[in-house]
């Protein structure tokens, strides 16, 4: 059955309002949409980060489902433990039924600090879904660079100034790193295409074994954009092929969306204050380098997926 908002809207809201995320936060949209895909009992584990902090300010919690936060580096290890405990109790006949396990982490808690625990959990083959909401920096602590921060983006630890034009490195390709663990399912998504994203979460939850979704999430504070455009800006990331939507199912790459007309990366960077310095004429070579990198990654992806677009089957 195709996903439909009217049906989804009848389900209970699992994340209560009253959380302290910024007005117009893109990450919380990504979390909320992921939870729309959940059916039946679920346990959520969270790495330290914006969403952990803003949804659990004592004495309040926004979680209407079982939730566990441990530390920055071990969301995947923690959910591994929960999943293993559940399996053990079930085997002993002390608990019945089925349960789903989801770990969330930001790009700081996934690309950087939690990478070893994620890698371990994927290798051990726990039955869980890991969702990385990727806003491309440590937004919670004041916009420090992470290994997901785009090329030339200005952050407080890679500031754009007279000498340095923002972050010097390209982000690492975490989705490919996860796929290299030969997990049954890994995908990239964006909340603007909710049908694709929610479909991917549903699909991942239905698969037994470790699954992974890397979802782009805007942060108007860090990206220096307007809060109202939180959805437009991630859409533009997809239309410029900076953030392609694809999935890797048992090693097979599938392209889920192909822009009718691939927009130049300038269309994406010119609307974000973190790239403002790049628009200077003297940085034209850097813009070209950025574009060349996007083109190269996109071509490499098309090589793996083929040109054919395959929608996510739910």
């Amino acid at each position: 059955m195709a996903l439909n908002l009217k049906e989804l809207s009848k389900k209970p809201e699992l994340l209560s309002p009253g959380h302290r995320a910024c007005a117009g936060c893109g990450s919380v949209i990504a979390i909320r949409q992921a939870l729309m895909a959940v059916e039946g009992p679920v346990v959520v584990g969270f790495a330290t980060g914006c969403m952990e902090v803003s949804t659990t300010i004592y004495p309040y919690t926004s979680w209407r489902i079982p939730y566990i936060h441990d530390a920055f580096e071990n969301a995947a290890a923690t959910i591994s433990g929960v999943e293993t405990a559940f399996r053990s109790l079930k085997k002993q006949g002390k608990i019945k039924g089925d349960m789903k396990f989801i770990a969330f982490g930001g790009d700081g808690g996934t690309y950087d600090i939690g990478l070893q625990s994620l890698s371990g959990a994927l290798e051990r083959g726990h039955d869980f879904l890991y969702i990385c909401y990727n806003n491309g920096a440590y937004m919670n602590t004041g916009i420090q660079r992470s290994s997901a921060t785009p090329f030339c983006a200005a952050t407080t630890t890679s500031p754009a100034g007279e000498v340095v034009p923002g972050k010097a490195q390209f982000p690492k390709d975490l989705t490919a790193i996860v796929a290299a663990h030969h997990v049954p399912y890994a995908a990239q998504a964006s909340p603007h295409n909710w049908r694709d994203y929610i479909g991917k979460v549903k699909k991942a939850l239905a698969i037994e074994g470790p699954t992974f979704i890397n979802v782009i999430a805007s942060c108007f504070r860090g990206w220096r954009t307007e809060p109202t455009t939180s959805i437009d800006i991630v859409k533009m990331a997809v239309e410029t092929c900076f953030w392609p939507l694809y999935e890797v199912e048992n090693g097979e790459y599938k392209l889920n969306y192909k822009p009718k007309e691939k927009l130049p990366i300038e269309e994406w960077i010119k609307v974000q204050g973190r790239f403002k310095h790049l628009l200077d004429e003297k940085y034209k070579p850097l813009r070209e380098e950025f574009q060349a990198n996007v083109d190269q990654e996109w071509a490499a992806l098309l090589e793996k997926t083929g040109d054919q677009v395959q929608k996510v089957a739910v």
Partner: protein
Amino acid sequence: MSDQAPGWKDLPIGGVIDHAGNSFEYETGDWRAARPTLDKNKCIDCLQCWVFCPDGSILVEDEKMAGFDYQHCKGCGICAHTCPVDAIEMISEEKVGEVEIDEWGVKKSSPPEKGDQG
């Protein structure tokens, strides 16, 4: 928001929060500088606003857009920006009295008309 934070004697052992989702009691609506208002004549109940709202503050009743939860809506304006038919208008909190809206933010000048619902 509570007027007085509970003292340590009132807290559960271990600081357990025994009410899941109790952030609902925390009204983030007072952060708002502008509030969304709905023109029900234009609204096609596509629920794009609902799926993109970061605060779960779009009220949906029987598959129809019913208005806004002003207790929690932070006024980010994503709903107005993503609405495909411009049925949502942001109004500065200072000028709220100038527009006739009901408590859910539906404009009174635009009662829903049959046949307009697509």
